[in-house]
């Protein structure tokens, strides 16, 4: 069994070599949220390795000591009921470990669910990130611009992503900036991220959403605030405006390249939040089951945000 552990460690180190000595994405964080997560992961790996080693060691000891070849032929194993003390240790130590990990986990939960502490004093940039099969739409409401399949962000400033989907559940994930969160049709999720320094990152949809899932990716470029402002200015000067017709054409299932627009789709197709949220449907849902009424919410003027509804 010890041999197996050695193989495991060897394969781990070999893995690093094979990967060209490049750290795995999750262990190469470029933002405060990803850093918290990488730290938690490493901590849990160490604690769990400790448990694994103990189990392996006990197993190896038992097998070596009590194998039939080590016993007299007439040896009759005793009847052992079990001991309260042993059981208490087997419960007690794992309980302590779980309590410790719970404390770490709960603290991290609140950290990743709020604006990164280091950038608390800066105003967050709000970006609406929505998916349609199989694209990403990024709307910058304050800058009044929109991009498809690529994301420009200022470094050193908190980012608030407002996530939702025109269709199946998707998941917004930039491993080096932080963990993922779902984008869904009837509510908006908020994901807090930040990039520490300029750089390029891989972003993707991590939740299976059909045929085009594998290619449902986007490029992320973090730059200084100045460069970001300059880019916004350029877009406003050069990009064509995003019309309702244009956006509806974009929503059609398929793959498109990267593109840039002035204006956002939020003006004519608001995100499912606040009074446009899917959870507003709650009251009408009971109507649904009672008398098969249309089930449209009271604020139905823009409730039909999903172009695909039949």
């Amino acid at each position: 069994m010890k041999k197996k552990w050695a193989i495991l460690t060897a394969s781990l180190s070999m893995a690093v070599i094979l990967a060209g000595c490049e750290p795995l994405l999750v262990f190469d964080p470029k933002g405060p949220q990803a850093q918290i997560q990488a730290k938690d992961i490493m901590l849990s790996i160490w604690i769990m390795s400790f448990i694994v080693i103990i189990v392996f060691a006990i197993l190896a000891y038992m097998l070596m000591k009590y194998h039939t070849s080590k016993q007299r032929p007439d040896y009759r194993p005793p009847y052992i009921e079990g001991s309260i003390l042993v059981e208490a240790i087997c419960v007690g130590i794992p309980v302590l470990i779980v309590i410790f990990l719970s404390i770490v986990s709960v603290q991290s939960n609140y950290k990743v669910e709020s604006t990164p502490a280091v950038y608390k004093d800066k105003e967050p940039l709000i970006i609406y990130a929505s998916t349609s099969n199989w694209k990403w739409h990024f709307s910058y409401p304050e800058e009044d611009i929109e991009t498809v399949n690529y994301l420009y962000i200022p470094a050193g400033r908190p980012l608030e992503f407002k996530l939702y989907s025109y269709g199946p559940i998707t998941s917004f994930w930039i491993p080096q900036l932080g963990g993922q969160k779902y984008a869904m049709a009837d509510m908006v999720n908020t994901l807090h991220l930040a990039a520490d320094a300029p750089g390029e990152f891989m972003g993707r949809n991590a939740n299976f959403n059909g045929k085009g899932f594998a290619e449902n990716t986007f490029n992320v470029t973090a730059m200084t605030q100045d460069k970001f402002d300059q880019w916004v200015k350029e877009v406003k000067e050069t990009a064509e405006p995003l019309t309702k017709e244009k956006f509806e054409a974009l929503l059609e299932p398929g793959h498109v390249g990267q593109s840039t627009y002035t204006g956002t789709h939020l003006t004519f197709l608001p995100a499912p939040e606040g009074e446009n949220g899917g959870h507003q449907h709650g009251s009408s849902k009971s109507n649904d089951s009672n008398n098969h009424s249309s089930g449209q919410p009271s604020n139905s003027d823009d409730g039909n945000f999903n172009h695909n509804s039949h």
Partner: protein
Amino acid sequence: MEFFERFAIPHPSPAIYASMVAIGLTVIAIVAGLTYFKKWGYLWREWLTTVDHKHIGIMYLISALLMLFRGGADAIMIRAQLAVPDNKLLDAQHYNEVFTTHGTVMIIFMAMPFIMAFMNYIVPLQIGARDVAFPRLNALSFWLFFMGAMLINISFVIGGSPDAGWTSYFPLANNEFSESVGTNYYMFALQISGLGTLMTGINMITTILKMRAPGMTLMKMPIFTWSALVTNIIIVFAFPVLTVALIMGTMDRLFATNFFTSTNGGIDMLWANFFWIWGHPEVYILVLPAFGIYSEIISTFSGRNLYGYKSMVGSMLIISFLSFLVWTHHFFTMGQGALTNSIFSITTMAIAVPTGVKIFNWLFTLWRGKIVITTAMLYSLLFIPIFTIGGVTGVMLGMSAADYQYHNTMFLVAHFHMVIIPGVVFGMLAGLHYYWPKMFGFILDEKIGKWTAWIISMSTLLAFMPMFFSGLDGQARRMYTYSESTGFGIWNMISFIGAIGLAIGFVLIVYNIYYSTRYASRDISSDPWDARSLEWATHSPVPEYNFAIVPHVTSTDALWDSKYNNHVLFPGKYEKIHMPNNSGIPFILSCIFFAWGFSFVFGMWIPAIITTIGIFICLGHRSLEKDYGRYISVKEIEETETKLRGV
């Protein structure tokens, strides 16, 4: 012709056409073979109409092995497609269908019948009963499961396979995004077999609570029976949730309701919640019976009683309770917020405590024992380290903030394979080797068996360890391909080699069955392993009535006590035995259910109405039928016993 167009494959390929031909030829071969060897009567009397728990157990076992190869073929296709970057072996649609059926078949139609096989065969023997409480219901359970399995398996040649993942998340699984009838197949196959599972749950609980041998109090039940009891309690609480969710999903797809749609008041998160309220307990439904089998095997081959029997029982009860309180950890990333995630994070990690207790109890069962390493024991000993690796990664996944990075990645895929393969598959294979002599009267070859155990366990490590790394490097699950620049290639190549190893291992198991059937000695005792509990107290193979005289029990290790502590296991003399009659109704009813499901899958309403009426006729027939069973006379018992003793 228009009528037949609906049955066409929406996305055909040469492989599917080849499968069609192969299926056709196999069916012809089976029918021809049965006719040529005049086996139709035998098939009908001994198998199709049987209500004997032992025959039903063996049919579950055969189905599980068949489905293992169906799901395994899918697995090989998945790994082959991902072995190199930008592979063109499968396109996206095929890949989606393949991983969907892989998951569905392996969980519902391989692992479930595998545990059902052992629960059916072993539980009545362990408690000294003559059959389960409701033998005919038991036959119905099996045939419903079997027809559900057939339904999902014809999907890829008639109408198209499901393609929305084994979790079948809405709205992706809705008509809008999953256009073929594939997901209808999923809904009805799971529904029909799920009904069977629910019936088994009721049946087994009744059997264990009401039919134990005299003297066997709850705390004197063998540990496998305890695991079966707890498992079936979970089944009875969890499966109705699946039933309801499947009905709602079916209504959405066939009758345009809006339970899970993204518009008109539907809630797309609702399916995910329902699915995992069933789905997480389902994991424990699979793993607890395997834990039971490990407990029996480790105790038998250590030559001593199970360490900490009471805490083993207690930990199972705690696990069963906690299993209903953790479902949200399957989607920490859905946006419930920090408080909800924290609660579910703690409950999730808490499950590690009773599971850990079980691991340590197994280790202490080895303590001061006399360890004999047979194939069954080897699987059990290999299970402990590999399952521990899989299990501790589960604790890591339970830390919700970190889970944002693991979720939907190969890390998760690695975790649940490293839990389910050692936890369930090794357990079932260990059980297969351990109980084979009881079922068939000869021992599977130990040398081939041990080689297989090593090949399978090392291949498991090879196939799934790399996924931890590729997951942390950003490889999402369910991607049909990836580019070379991602650097995932090497990990997936190693996985592919591991998958080949697993395939070789499973082929070796079949070879071992063939080899041992031909060459193994039939001259073995009814207790070849020097075991401890009642199933080894009767003959191998087991006579129809299980025990000629009802055993009397005073401890958890009744047989052991009778062998070494002068306990009298069978007091009294032969009396006539009341046994249930065979019935063709469960099989016929299930066939109608198959046609019923098939009609609904394609929205063919007239056959759907006719089959629905057929179902009610069968139920009515059962209600009005007068069947008081039959008696086996003392003379018959004496004859059978003399013959089986081989005197």
